[in-house]
Structures are given as C-alpha cells and as structure tokens.
C-alpha cells in the first residue's frame, strides 16, 4: 500500500512537471507567434526585403547602436576576395556616418576561406556579417544546401535583376577572355577558337602562343575547362569547327564529345603556363613581337592601365571585347553577396548589400573599370566594354549544376591531358 502511494505520488509529480513544461512551451510559442519582431537572421532578412531604404537604414542603425551599447568592440565584418568590397565599405561609411569606423573588410581568398566557412557552418558559429564568394559549387552544395548562407535581394526603383541572378544573390559578374598585344600581329590574330588548338584551318592559321594559368592552381580555369565539355560548348565548338575547317565535325571515338577533343588539343597547344593573370596582363606591353595570347580576366586591364608608361589600351585586343571570335570568347562567372545565418548585424548586412548593388555602391567598388558587371542590370558597364548580356552570348557561362554533374569525369580527363 505504502509502495502504491509512492508510485502514485511519483506519477502525479511527473504529470504535473510535464504539464507545466508543456504549458510553458505553449506560452513561449504563443509569444513568438504573436510578436511582430523577427528574431532569427532569416526572419530579419525577410523583414528587410519588405522595407524601404529609409526603414532599412533605421533598422540597421538601431541594430548597430544596440550592439555597440552591449559591446563597444562590435564591428561589421565584410569578408571577400575582391578588394572592391573594401572600397564599397569605405563609401558605405561615408554615406552612413553612424557606421563610420565600424565596417571591417577582411580579404579572404576562396580556397583559404572555404575551410573557415565550413568550420563556422559546422559549429553554427559567427564568422562574418557579409560574405562575398566565388566558387559556385562550394556555395551551392556546401553552403546553400546546408542553409548557412542566406540571400537578400534589394527592391525598388533603382534595382532590376535578371532571372537566375537572385536567391542566391549575384553581386558582381566577371569574365576571363583571350587578350593580346596587337601592335605587330594585328587586331584579328585570333578569329576562331579552333586556332588555339594549333591546327590550320581553311583560311586561318593555327596559333601557338597561348598563355593560360594552370587549372591545377586556379579553380576558375578548372571550371572553364570543364565547361568546354558542356552541351552549350559542344554547340558552339561544332559551328566554329565547320567554319574553321570548312567541313562538318565527325565524332572521334576517342573523345566523349567535341568539347573533350577541343580541350585535349587546346591543352597540348598551350605554350606558357603563367602563374599570375595580373603579372601576365601587365607584361602584355612586352609581348608585341609574338602577340602572346593571354587568357586572363578582362578586369585585369586595370593593372595594365595602372602602369605609368604603357602603350594605349587600343594596342590591346580582347576576344569578345574589341575582337570577334567564333566559338567562344572566354568564360563568365559570378561572385555572390550573402549573409551567414549567424550574422550579428543582419539589417546592416542587408543595407550593405543594397548599397553594393546600387549604382553608387557599384561605382565606388568597381566603377570606371573594364570587366566588372553588376547583377543590377540598371548599371551599365563602362564605355568601351560590352553589356553583360553580350558576354553571356559570346562566352561559356559557369553552370554550377553542369560542373557538379561533370566534375568527376572531366577533371580526370583534364589531369590526363595535363600529365602527358
């Protein structure tokens, strides 16, 4: 009897505790659902999405002031590979004086930054308030699928984005093209991409002076090489083949498609494996005699233009830029602007992205330079450069889904070619 009483008391006590806990939980949930205040970073981004610029600024300012009051050392960390973000940060501080001295730019190289993001994502820890990264596959498979990086797209009169450039939000688009010093070899040295295999065409000669950064040391070039095997490249290469050799392409059983064949012949014909696009573009001034064709970012022209004594930029030719090339002119790839779900200042992150994608912000970071294209299509490239839509038509465009599915096979093939 005594034992039965004890058991009964225990059961009752357990039920009471359980009920209280359940009530507490319900009460919390009710509080959350009735509250209009977003609490998580995702909720704050969703709220920011509906705000006007003034409202967003007010929210960001209040957020920053509260954070600084709680911890005077609080800063807004902006992590990126491109130094353009540093300039945007400086201009942002000027525009929003309450943020002055609080925006810290951290230069982060992709392959060195990925372990940092991975570690932060695994531990669900703070890493930065704003992240701008380049590796599409890493972004898609490791960050977005894991829900660690979140996207904010500004809206309003000044903003217009093409389909496929939001969520995840593209910040800036870049291109890599074939550049050469045209003073002796002429503007039209390269007219068909098959010339780069070294084989002579019907009316054009094969070229043996391409300089490329090894895809083993440069991820973007690895993606470019992989994209050469894509259906889009196959279409382009087949048409260019007919034009160059004057006959239809007949499939070679040694290759999976024309892209693989082109890749193999192109790789074998590369005469120089340069180590730095920047140095090689600067050195174009010395390559008048052999007209070396340097595959590098069009944006690197800023380094060429930065030289104190240089021939005119008109002495340079670039595939798709001021010289037409059949096949493809180069490679187009993106940098995305994102917010970690552990960000401490999410409203400021949204305001920062909004500013970066505005005309004023873009000009502060990348204005007046070739080879930088804002995802905001209202912002035009500088005079003399092509609109992004044109580049999309003339270049191979990074396709993360294709790269993901083809990587295994294509990188084996590429390593086989490079290892010969």
């Amino acid at each position: 009897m005594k034992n039965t009483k004890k058991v009964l008391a225990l059961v009752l006590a357990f039920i009471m505790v359980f009920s209280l806990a359940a009530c507490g939980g319900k009460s919390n949930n009710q509080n959350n659902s009735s509250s209009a205040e977003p609490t998580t970073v995702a909720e704050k981004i969703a709220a920011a999405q509906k705000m006007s610029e003034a409202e967003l600024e007010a929210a960001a300012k209040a957020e920053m002031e509260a954070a600084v009051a709680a911890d005077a050392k609080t800063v807004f960390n902006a992590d990126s590979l491109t130094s353009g973000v540093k300039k945007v940060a400086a201009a942002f501080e000027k525009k929003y004086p309450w943020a002055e001295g609080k925006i810290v730019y951290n230069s982060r190289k992709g392959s060195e930054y990925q372990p940092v993001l991975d570690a932060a994502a695994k531990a669900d820890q703070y890493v930065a308030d704003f992240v701008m990264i380049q590796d599409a596959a890493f972004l898609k498979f490791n960050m977005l699928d894991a829900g660690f990086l979140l996207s904010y797209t500004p809206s309003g009169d000044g903003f217009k984005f093409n389909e496929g450039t939001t969520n995840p939000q593209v910040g800036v688009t870049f291109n890599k093209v074939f550049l050469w010093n045209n003073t002796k070899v002429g503007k039209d040295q390269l007219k068909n991409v098959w010339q780069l295999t070294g084989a002579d065409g019907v009316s054009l000669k094969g070229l043996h002076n391409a300089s490329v950064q090894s895809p083993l040391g440069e991820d973007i070039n690895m993606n470019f090489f992989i994209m050469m095997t894509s259906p889009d490249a196959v279409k382009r290469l087949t048409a260019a083949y007919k034009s160059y050799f004057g006959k239809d392409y007949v499939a070679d059983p040694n290759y999976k498609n024309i892209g693989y064949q082109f890749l193999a012949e192109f790789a074998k014909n590369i005469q120089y494996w340069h180590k730095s696009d920047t140095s090689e573009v600067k050195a174009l001034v010395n390559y008048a005699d052999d007209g070396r064709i340097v595959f590098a970012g069009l944006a690197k022209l800023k380094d060429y233009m930065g030289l104190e004594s240089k021939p005119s930029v008109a002495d340079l030719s670039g595939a798709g830029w001021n010289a037409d090339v059949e096949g493809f002119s180069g490679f187009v790839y993106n940098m995305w602007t994102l917010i970690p779900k552990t960000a401490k200042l999410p409203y400021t992150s949204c305001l920062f992205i909004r500013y970066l994608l505005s005309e004023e912000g873009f000009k502060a970071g990348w204005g007046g330079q070739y080879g930088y294209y804002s995802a905001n299509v209202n912002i035009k490239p500088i005079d003399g450069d092509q609109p992004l839509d044109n580049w999309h038509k003339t270049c191979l465009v990074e396709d993360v889904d294709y790269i993901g599915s083809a990587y295994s096979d294509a990188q084996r093939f590429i390593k086989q070619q490079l290892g010969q």
Partner: protein
Amino acid sequence: MKTKTKSSGNRIKAYFSKPANVISVIFIVILFAAVILPLFTLLLGSVTINGNQEAMYVGGGAKNGDFTSHHWWELLFSKEYDYAKKAFWQPLGQSALMALYACAIAVIFGGVVAWFITRSDLPFKKFISTVFVFPYIMPSWAMAMFWENFFKNTQINAGMGILQSVTGICVPESMVYGFAPCAWALGLHYAPFAYILIGGILRNMDANLEEAATVLKASRFKILRKVTLPIVMPALISTVLLVFSSSISSFTVPFFLNKSSITSGNNFISISVQMRSLVNSGFTKGQGYVVAIVLMLFSIIILTLNSKVTGKRKSFTTVTGKSGQVSLVKLGKARVIVAIVLVIIVAFFAIMPLVSFATESLCEISGDWSTFSLKYWISDEPFEGSAKGDTIGILRSTILWKALGRSVLLSICVAFAAGTFGLLIGYAVAKKRGSKLAGMVSNIAFFPYLIPSMSFGAVYLALSYTKGFTWLDGSFFLLLMVGAIKFMPFASRTGTSAMLQLSGEIEEAAVIMGIPWWKRMTKVLFPIQKSSFMSGYLLPFISCMREMSLFVLLAASYTTLVTTVLQEYSRTGLNQASNAINLLIIIFVLVIQFAVNKLTGASIDKGVGG
C-alpha cells in the same frame, strides 16, 4: 599486498625522479594532444565523405560524413583516363626523384661548405659563413624566381634573362623550366640547412679522432669515410629527412618553374601541385588527404631508418669535455682558389636573389628599367586599386609596421617555445636512447613537419570554432601554439643531434657535485652546445617569420602578420610591394641574427664556425 603497492609506488617515484623520464611523459601527453588530433583528422578525412560536393562526386547515394574507400581506390587504382597514373603515381615518382636530387644537392653543397668552414684553413670564412645562410632565410620560391630570371632566354620565348643579356648564351628549356630546375632551386634553398646541421656537428667534433687516424697513417678519404662521415651521420640523416620531406611537398617551386608547354617534354607536375588542386576543390578533398598521408608515409620510412641509425649507434659521442682543440686541414696552394670559387658561388646564389627582389620592387614591369619607380617603398598616395590608404609605400604603412611587429613578437615566442621544447626533447631522447618512450617522443615530435601546413592550420581552425575553445579564434595564442608545434621538429632534431654528441660523463660529474637538474642544463649542457641549441631557436624563428600557409587560415585578418600582408599585396597584383616586403623580411631576419650574434655571441653562421 601493501608491500607490493608500496614497492610499485617507489618504482613510480624513482622513475619520476629522473628529469628525462618526466620530460618524456609530459611531452608524450602534449604531443599526443597536439599532433595526433590533426593526424587523426587527416586520416579520417581520407576515408569519409567531406561535404556535399564530395558526396556528389563520389555518387552512389553517398552522404556527407559517410565512410568510404573511394578516395583511396580512385587515386591509387582508377584506370579511367589513366587517372591514378596521371594524377598520382607519375607525379609521385617524379617528385620523389626530384626530392632525392634536391637532398643530394643540399647535402653535397651544404656539407662541403660546412667542412671547408669548420675543418680547413680557408680564408674569407666569415663572409662565406654569413652569406651562405641567406637562401634559407628567403622563401623557397625566391630561388625559383631568381633561377628563371637568370636563365630564361628569347630562344624559348621566355624573355631575356640575365645570362643571355650578359653573355648572349641561351640555355635549353630543360635548364629553365621543369624537373631539373626544380631540384636545383630546392637543393640550393635547403643547402644552408644541411650546412647548419652538419657544420654544427663538425665544429664540435673532437679533432683528436681525426688526428689519431692521421697518426695511424689513414688516407684522407679513409678518415672521411671511417671517422668524419659516421660522426656526422645523424645530422646527415636528419638533413636528408627534413630536406626530402620539404622538397617532395614543396608547392611553390614546382608551381613557379613549370611554365613549359605539355609538348615540350619539360612539363613537370609535382605531387604537391596535384595535392593542392585536389584539396582546394570541394569535390576531391578526400583524395588530397590521401596524397598528404602518402607523403607522410615516405617521410615515416626515412624517420624509421633514422631511428634505427641513432638507436643502434653506441659511441659516437664527440663532445667529451676533454678536448676543445680543433686542428684545421691545411689546403696549401688550393686555399685561395677554393676560397674564390666558393665566394663567387655563395655570393651568386645568396646575394643575387636579394638584388632581384630589390629590382622587382623598383620596376613597374619586371626587368624594364624605363618603368623605375620608388612609389612602392615611399609613396604616401594609395596605389591603384586600394582604399582606406593602407596600401601606400611600405616604409610609410602603419599597417605593415604593426604587422611586422606582431610577426616578430610571434616568431620570438614561437622560437622560444619550439627551441625549448626541442632542447628538452633532445635531452630526454639522448638520456633514454634506445627506450621505446624516447623513440616515440622523438618520432611524434617530428610529425608536425610532415603534415601539410594548410591541413595543420585547418584542424586548429576547426578547434577554434568548437564550443569551449572559441576563445582561441583569431587569438595570438592560437598562432603561437600552432607555430610552436609546427616548428618544433627543427628544434627537436637539432636538440637531439647536439645532446647525442655530449658525453654522459659531463652531466654525471655535475650530478656527483649535487648540482640540480635545471642548473646542469643552463650552466653545463647548454653552454657546451650553445651553437647547436641556438640553431634550434633560430631555425623556428626564421621559419615563423616567413611562414604563410600555416597562419593564413588562423590569422584574425590579413593585417595580422607581415606575411599575410605580403600575400594580400601579391593577390591584388601589387607584386612590387610584395617583393619589397620580402626583402624587408629577409633584411629584418638578418638584423635579428646579427643582434643575437652581438648579444650572445652565437648565431647560425657563427655556430658553424665562421
């Protein structure tokens, strides 16, 4: 029962009454925690799916975190597109051969110079000894860059190099790019290392041994073979081990000197370049870890051989306290000729790269003096592409000076920690030579050297994001800890070599006099082998000052250390400024070395006897 407990208690007490045992136990615990963790992570990474990207690559429904043998199988055996052969076996074989050539060059060049400096009456010793260590102070790619700048020529469409512009000679492409230049650049870079280790031993070697052999009418060659070589063998093997491990995993030199086309026959893709490519891609991280493990296995084999040699040898003690006399071999008429040849060679490989750093920092376009500019040194205007005024002339940049200050502080702390750890480990290993514990401590202390810097840094990065350890994130202590462990192998090898030379009688005499252990260390053992021990401090200092890969993931920002600033300048295309910083680092290290020399009378070159 009680007696048994008491006796085992006494045994433990007796065991721990010996400092060598205490040191061994403490270090085995520290090293297990600090070294086994990254090692285990590396091994685990090679048999699991590392992220969603890799899961997609592996296919077959694999998920992040799943166990898999795919990475090993694919890299070692896959025949599709000759993948295993092209991506692994071929680069591995070529890289191993390149590392062996580099070892031979380093040991022969460094060893010969060390012998001339320590055992002969060669003139200009001071100059040769001082200048010879310069290439080791420079980053390894500096030698590669100099090699290219010197030998490149217009016949191979690489632009005019120094040799062609001075003599008109155009060397073949295989002398400019590819396998052989890589081996030479690495060998020349590590020759000072061989010089330091071998020279330290030669300098302290009892001259009576060689003199006794001479009295017994042994030929010079026989003396070298039967007396000198066996004595320097531990240092020789340590050198081979360190140079081989460094060379086979060197990324920058093969990356820099592989500009040849595939069809030229001089296209050389090293295993380290393959490893970097695999690790950097989210699709193939696991395969990159496999390469790292295989590279470690290579070094473990040499390490085992090393242990066998040092474990077997019975009485190569050369510092007995009985003779400090060194008799120098008289070179006779060859004295001046040898000196001139050595001065020219040493000056060429040590000073010319510095000159090329200086010229690169002064020209907008490499080698084009019409683009001469001092702006990367003294301009107070921001360079093109910079903001916030931080990329101004390096002599005016407060960011750079602060970073340099932090680097110096870090290097001093790392050198102190690593050097002291190395000295203590050396003591424990020498005292307990032949015991399993000593062997284990010695071997594990070497492991950090074998783990690629980036992987090592990545493990500690993950640790700093783990709950309970977040205080480490971006902290100076994290950099210090990682640096001390990573550079401990230099100090432990030097410490062990030096301690093995010391006769037990010296310490025994002090023990009989009742001198406590710490006093024996600081007043007896350290002063006798000061030059070798100081090398154990200076080597981590130099390495830490120019280290980049290890700290790049762990530094709070790019402004933290001078090398991260350098990398940022290089990344943003400011090569002139990065060359200027390189020169600044080298000059700074030389100044420190000079200061150490003035204050303590010891330095790397002095240690060898210059």
